[in-house]
């Protein structure tokens, strides 16, 4: 259980801001600013945080859909950002992604069957003769019918499109899937179906997930371990049980208190954060969260808290934890 499939070491991803006549770099958006964690084989690791905190950037940099700025991503012990282009392409089938928006992630002019199966051809994982059977088999696993093979994406609903996206990733027989908010664009009733599909697939195929979400209840349902991000940094990481029963970072506490409880008789203390998330191009000094933290002190403004293990594999970056 503790064998690492993906190891992220001090990963940084800055997007340059250019300006002036000569397009010089005049600043950096620090989307991911020094993050380390590991994802063990067979587990699903949840990554939560509000919009713009760098969750998706991590997911994409992990698969080398973005170039990194600094740090390392090890997949099965190999630094994928150091691989030559063709070697990286050969590794692609092992690591797949399910995108957030099922409408923009499918090419409108390519039939569903071809969209699912084409990558097998390019990796020589299947010959043309058996391709259609294989595609239809995968489509059925993902809850699509075989007569959907010759249809175009615009003929499907959002939930069905997301199933197509999942089938497209699954047919490659990956070890690792990044699920980048796979349900946030869907209706609640469809969300449940897709989440169940993902968790069934994980059980059957021993998949490893990085599950990116801003919905804590979804993460609670699906993940073994959870990391909480704020403004490009990891502020807390623990096993699901530990995190949900004993959140230590004030930001995590605020997120927890925002989970809706479908029972109007229960009263609870909401921690409501003031203000907006600061700009990642110009993050606050000291602890990045001090501008919105309900318990911030003078020390927080000066000194960035260390990201440390408080026991029981529970990591947190707060002076008061």
């Amino acid at each position: 259980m503790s064998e690492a499939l993906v190891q992220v070491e001090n990963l940084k991803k800055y997007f340059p801001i250019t300006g002036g006549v000569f397009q010089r770099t005049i600043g950096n958006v620090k989307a991911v600013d020094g993050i380390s964690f590991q994802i063990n084989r067979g587990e699903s690791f949840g990554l939560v945080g509000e919009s713009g905190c760098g969750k998706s950037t991590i997911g994409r940099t992990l698969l080398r859909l973005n170039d990194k700025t600094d740090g390392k991503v090890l997949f099965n012990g190999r630094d994928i950002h150091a691989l030559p282009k063709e070697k990286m392409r050969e590794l692609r089938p092992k690591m797949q992604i399910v995108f957030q928006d099922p409408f923009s992630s499918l090419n409108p002019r390519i039939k569903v069957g071809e969209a699912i199966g084409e990558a097998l051809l390019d990796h020589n994982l299947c010959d043309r003769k058996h391709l259609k059977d294989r595609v239809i088999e995968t489509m059925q696993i993902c809850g699509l019918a075989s007569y959907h093979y010759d249809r175009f994406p615009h003929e499907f609903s959002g939930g069905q499109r997301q199933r197509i996206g999942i089938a497209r990733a699954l047919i490659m027989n990956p070890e690792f899937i990044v699920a980048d908010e796979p349900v946030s664009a869907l209706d609640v009733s469809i969300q449940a179906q897709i989440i169940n599909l993902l968790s069934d697939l994980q059980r059957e195929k021993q998949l490893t997930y990085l599950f990116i979400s801003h919905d804590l209840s979804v993460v609670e349902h699906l993940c073994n371990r959870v990391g909480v991000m704020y403004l490009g940094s990891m502020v807390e990481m623990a096993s699901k049980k530990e995190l949900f029963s004993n959140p230590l970072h004030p930001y995590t506490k605020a997120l927890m208190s925002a989970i809706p409880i479908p029972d109007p008789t229960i009263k609870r203390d909401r921690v409501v954060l003031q203000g907006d998330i600061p700009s990642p191009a110009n993050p606050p000094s000291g602890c990045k969260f001090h501008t919105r933290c309900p318990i911030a002190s003078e020390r927080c403004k000066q000194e960035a808290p260390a990201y440390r293990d408080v026991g029981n594999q529970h990591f947190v970056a707060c002076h008061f934890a």
Partner: protein
Amino acid sequence: MSVEVASLEKNTKVSVKQPDSPWRAALRRFTRNRLALMGLIILIFMFLICFIGPLFSPYVLNDYDLEVKNLAPNAAHWLGTDKLGRDILLRMMLAGRISLTVGLIATGISVVIGATLGALAGYYRKGVDTFIMRTADIFMSLPGLPILIILGAILSDLKVDASDRIYFLMLIIGVLGWTGLARLVRGQILTLREMEFMQATDALGLRDRRKIFRHLMPNVIPIIIVSATLGVAGAILYESALSYLGIGVVPPIPSWGNMISAANNMIDFRKRPWLWIPPGLCILITVTAINLIGDGLRDALDPKMKNR
């Protein structure tokens, strides 16, 4: 006309039932456009006359008969005869074959070159982009007609056989015409390559060839079609201009352009209008029809362009 209306009704009925695919929606928008439909009918009519008409003519090409030279239109020669006694109607139809073919193939060549180079420039960017687009800039800054005249003169100087000359002409017009489409395609590809479905192809590890030709190209086909249609009209005009100047298609092979040039003296021009009016009308009608179709296709395939 009643047949047309019936087919229109049938078309709308069908489109209500079936889900609106991009192509079917475009077809529906196109058939609603009266002018474009008229252009299409005229063009088909033109093709029929040029390619099937000569089969019904009692005359054969290059059938010189000086006894009937310079006849005005009459019962035997509907459009009269020229100074060598050849039937104008037959020559006009055969000239149409040449002019239409040259226009189509020259455009085909420039579409293949333009679309491929544009796609490569847009996909690979950086050095490839700079190289291809600067080359396109150079081509665009060459004055078109003078260059064509010079190349035509070179062909004449090399004494290329009249029938081989047609192929060179197609090639020259085609090779000079790729730049506009290359720019359009490059621009589209630059936007498309940032779309999420292209990130998905990265994640799947598809080969560049499949990414460019299966994923990007189908999304630029609408603008290729529009640009190609309008390009055919341009190529026909270029061919006519060159042939009129005597450096495009040369006699004895007829083309609309060199038929008009038969009337290059005041006597023929004023006294024998049947020499130059029919081929001139053919060029006018064909080019207008193609332009109408092109405009209709643009409105049909790219609805956003319409309300510019």
